[in-house]
């Protein structure tokens, strides 16, 4: 629950950051399948696609970034110890989730990394097709790889680990099918200009590209540029509203979840308190006997508190087994102590206000 809330908070944070940068635009292809094939099979169009890229790069007052999650990195599973983290293992090859990005990605989505953002952007910018591919790894990979370690994929391409993401990093993209991706098991590599598969690679890449600008007229010009070069028709769409909606959706979700949790907590608390009250009532005579025999009020209070303490400790232990001794466990432990104190307050008060003599009178026939 705590980690879910953390993810929610981070997602909202990421969206709000994106919103603060300006209007977000996305270009999509509105051609029919046949038309796309026609264009992408035509090698002469490659120069036009290249020109479009240059055009986008040169657009004024506009930030762009590309983030494509559609490809995976394949490693022979006999060569990799990290195969547990793979999305898929088939025929001796492990497929790892991979995000291909341009350096602008790191401005749009500030991630905490073991290496400076500017340095990553520099490395990603300088990467050329025949180089060793720089790769940023999610936190879960720390167990298997070291910084600067070089590994080879099943296509003999070499990768160098340039750094790791902080545990719990997310890629919260409002325009992606999955709103927030936990990046712990992801690899992040530069997009490069290795447009695999010819023309279709360009289309994939263009549709994974986002533009951030407050000038709608520039977007119109971009679409005209597509038309001028007789590429298939593209249209642009503003995503800012969607981001805004998503943020408010998320907040509503969080609110709903909070309410449900509050409700559950209320039920649990009512149950706990009435259980404790019943416990105190049932044991009242017993406590009185202890008091007669020389117990202090404090000894009895301790007995009552222990009753609840055992239950809470058991649940803490369960959390410890599931999450280990992390921040989640610490939070739960702290909460359970506070919770225990507040839940036992009423039964303890009940006991405190009962004079010992009264207790004995109520139970005895004196």
């Amino acid at each position: 629950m705590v980690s879910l809330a953390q993810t929610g908070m981070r997602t909202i944070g990421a969206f709000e950051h994106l919103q603060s940068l300006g209007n977000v635009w996305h270009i999509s292809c509105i051609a029919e399948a046949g038309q796309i094939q026609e264009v992408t099979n035509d090698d002469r169009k490659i120069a036009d696609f290249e020109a479009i890229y240059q055009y986008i790069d040169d657009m004024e007052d506009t930030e762009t970034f590309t983030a494509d999650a559609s490809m995976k990195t394949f490693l022979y599973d006999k060569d990799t110890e990290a195969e547990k983290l793979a999305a898929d293992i088939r025929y001796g090859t492990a497929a790892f989730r991979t995000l291909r990005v341009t350096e602008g990605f790191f401005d749009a989505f500030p991630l905490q990394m073991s290496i400076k953002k500017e340095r990553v952007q520099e490395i990603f910018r300088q990467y050329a097709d025949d180089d060793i591919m720089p790769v940023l790894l999610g936190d879960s990979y720390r167990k298997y790889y070291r910084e600067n370690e070089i590994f080879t994929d099943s296509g003999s391409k070499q990768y160098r680990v340039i750094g790791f993401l902080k545990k719990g990093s997310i890629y919260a993209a409002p325009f992606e099918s999955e709103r927030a991706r936990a990046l712990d098991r992801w690899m992040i590599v530069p997009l490069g200009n290795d447009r695999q598969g010819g023309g279709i690679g360009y289309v994939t890449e263009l549709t994974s590209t986002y533009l951030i600008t407050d000038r709608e007229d520039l977007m119109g010009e971009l679409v005209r540029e597509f038309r001028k070069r007789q590429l298939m028709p593209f249209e642009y769409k503003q995503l800012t509203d969607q981001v805004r909606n998503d943020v408010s959706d998320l907040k509503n979700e969080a609110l709903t979840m909070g309410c449900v949790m509050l409700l559950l907590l209320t039920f649990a608390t009512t149950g706990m308190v009435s259980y404790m009250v019943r416990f105190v009532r049932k044991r009242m005579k017993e406590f009185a006997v202890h008091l007669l025999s020389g117990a202090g009020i404090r000894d009895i209070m301790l007995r009552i508190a222990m009753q609840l303490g055992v239950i809470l400790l058991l649940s803490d232990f369960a959390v410890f087994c599931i999450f280990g001794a992390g921040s989640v466990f610490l939070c739960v432990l702290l909460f359970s102590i506070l919770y225990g104190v507040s839940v036992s307050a009423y039964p303890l008060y009940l006991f405190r206000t009962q004079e010992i003599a009264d207790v004995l009178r109520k139970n005895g026939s004196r």
Partner: protein
Amino acid sequence: MYAIRTEKIYRRYKGKGFQVEALRDVTLNVKKGEMVAIIGTSGSGKTTLLNILGLIDVPDSGEYFLNGIRTGECREKELARMRNQNLGFVLQDFALIDRYTAEQNIRVPLMYSDIPKKEWNGRIQACLEQMGISDRKKRLPSELSGGQKQRIAIARALVTGADIILADEPTGALDSKTSMDIMEVFSGLREEGKTILIVTHDSSIADLCDRLICIEDGRLV
């Protein structure tokens, strides 16, 4: 030296729209080793007095000295210690813990005393033998007769070496034969030098005591 000395004790119960003067101007001296009977009609304040003497209730005014100690100035912790070491309670309904065996019931006061753990079993055994019920130590109260239960209650009162026994109608739930047996136990304890206060309605029991104290409407007469 008095085991128990009170000076002008008052105790009122206030409720919604009523006020009861349960004890008025009670001045009482009990010497060490005395066996005293407290008699009075129902509602006259006997239990209230015994509860105050037993340090589980406090007077609204007046002084109470236990073995010469001014109890009004003691803290809860010290009162608890005195209940543990100096006082033993025996009640009409036995006040045994139903889910504990005889032995475990007798152990309760030891848990709050300074007596080292290794002496506990010896003490429990000695008390059980003194009460003549060592063969019943593993039984639950529900498996025992009224007389046996009361013997366990007395054993519990004695196990930490208390020198004052406060008994509130200890024979109230017993037949006359068993009552006399229990009274013999109390007489035996008096021989040992214990101070004993017994609240009773039964004149034949009162006759066995050194002295009679009569309460009427919260006053000693």
